[in-house]
């Protein structure tokens, strides 16, 4: 039977999606010298175009991009990135300052814009990873930020500041951590939603207490002791707010919390002038940071999006999937207590209790 020559468009598709092309066309293209010659020419053009146009896989972290989008949408609108010269993000139209503004107002605006212009998100976790921590690691780490012993009490204040070996840290919180009457009250106070499990393991009673944690913002101003890369830069870390719910035991035993469920807005760090790798390099090289731990942290594939979950001595860890996210599950030596941590929907979720890992995961998967 005579077969018509295969149209150009179908020959083109044959290169990309051969199973979508009718068998008779495939057979014809295979035996018709004229169609084969056209196919070769089409393939040559397609190959050149692919080589030139095909972009490598996008690498920008999605959660960082989402944070950027929020900042852009909330900030002064730019009139098109797309018209001007190549630029970094945050460029603002100079004309928006207004010709009639006073010099002072312009100066203040420029200073504010300059500060905003250099803010970069350096940490916004989207995943968790277990990092073993030994007893020997814990003490020097706490000492690093002078949070050990007496100094730790300073953070109990809603706001304040403290000297660091490499600058100063100041912090403020949106309120006090407190117990509230209901989950609805906790959610209303924080904007964080918590899904409570519908089915509970044996031994776990009803929710008994609801807690809210305020949003905490800490600002580290690095001075010249921090070295040239960080000197003069600022690191702003926010965490929270969060909600925690604790459960009572079903047997009427008081004083024991068999299960707690919590969700906290994930920590986000932004920096003016320093990159994630510069900050990581500096912090991990501080005296007192154990070299083994520093090595573990340096192995993180993407430190700006990975939340390390410390695995204390004696505990074991495993990773499972909860609600499409990787969760770290920690279990104590006796397998009586366990906990799971994961990041999802912009929150860090924690479920912990006097449960074995199987029961705990059953709860986590309802919460997630």
């Amino acid at each position: 039977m005579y077969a018509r020559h295969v149209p150009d468009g179908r020959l083109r598709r044959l290169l990309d999606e051969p199973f979508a092309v009718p068998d008779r066309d495939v057979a014809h293209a295979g035996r018709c010298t004229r169609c084969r010659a056209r196919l070769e020419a089409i393939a040559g053009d397609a190959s050149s175009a692919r080589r030139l146009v095909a972009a490598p896989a996008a690498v920008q972290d999605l959660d960082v991009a989402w944070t950027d989008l929020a900042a852009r949408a909330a900030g002064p609108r730019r009139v098109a990135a797309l018209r001007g010269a190549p630029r970094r993000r945050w460029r603002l139209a100079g004309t928006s300052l207004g010709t009639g503004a006073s010099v002072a107002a312009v100066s203040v605006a420029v200073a504010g814009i300059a500060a905003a212009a250099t803010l970069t998100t350096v940490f916004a976790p989207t995943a968790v990873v277990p990092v073993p921590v030994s007893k020997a690691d814990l003490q020097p780490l706490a000492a690093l930020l002078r949070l050990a012993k007496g100094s730790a009490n300073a953070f109990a204040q809603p706001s304040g500041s403290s000297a660091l070996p490499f600058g100063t840290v100041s912090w403020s919180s949106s309120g006090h951590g407190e117990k509230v009457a209901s989950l609805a009250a906790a959610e209303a106070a924080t904007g964080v939603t918590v899904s409570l499990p519908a089915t509970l393991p044996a031994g776990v009673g009803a929710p008994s207490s609801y807690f809210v944690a305020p949003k905490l913002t800490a600002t580290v101003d690095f001075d010249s002791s921090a070295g040239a890369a960080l000197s003069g830069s600022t690191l702003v870390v926010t965490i929270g707010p969060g909600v925690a719910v604790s459960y009572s035991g079903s047997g009427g035993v008081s004083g024991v919390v068999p299960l707690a469920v919590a969700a906290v807005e994930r920590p986000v760090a932004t920096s003016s002038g320093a990159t994630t790798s510069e900050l990581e390099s500096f912090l991990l090289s501080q005296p007192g940071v154990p070299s083994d731990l520093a090595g573990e942290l340096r192995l993180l594939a993407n430190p700006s999006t990975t939340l390390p979950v410390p695995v204390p001595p004696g505990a074991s860890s495993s990773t499972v999937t909860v609600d499409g996210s990787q969760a770290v599950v920690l279990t104590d030596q006796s397998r009586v207590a366990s906990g799971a941590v994961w990041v999802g929907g912009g929150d860090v979720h924690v479920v912990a209790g006097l449960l074995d890992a199987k029961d705990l995961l059953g709860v986590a998967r309802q919460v997630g």
Partner: protein
Amino acid sequence: MGVGIELVHDGTAAEIGPTTGGAPSVGAARADGRAHGGFERFFHEQYPVVLRIAYGVVRDAHLAEDVAQDVLIAAQRRFPDPLGSSHAAAWVRVAASHLALNSVRGRRRREDRHGRARMPCAPAGPEEIAVVREEESQLRAALARLPRHSATVLVLRHSGLSYAEVAESMGVKIGQVGTMLRRAEAALRKELTRKEVDRDVRAPRS
């Protein structure tokens, strides 16, 4: 004041201009709890595609991010419930292509005075970098000269979209995509060849 994007679905026109109305409240979405969770999911699904499409045209990671973010901000205003929309995904893809093409048209005469940020696969040697930059410069210029629908089909297809997705994005039948792509690739070759000929002709004079 916000940035407005108006697209004609057949890919023949795209305009960017100021519009009235409040800025999209992505930040507020977080504060509202999960009121805009649908858009966040849409963002996570579409942003990588949009970024890849934009980068395919502008060849500059930062500018591609700008394009992608502008498109998603505009999409949020246009599609309050993008997951429930049958054409939100198609819209952001074509919008990315059009905005990126608009940007290179505005940049054609400002080539490479600044170092551009690339996706991390640039060759290491200075000669190779120079060759790649020259190719990218020529590509941007060629894409800018092609008819809009030809440039769009090239960019969409070579950013990894299937024929079905390209058809959906451009509002054409799937059977037309192969023909459009073939013509666009041939036109691209001709544009690049013409550019080379022009350069060779000019070279002896200078």
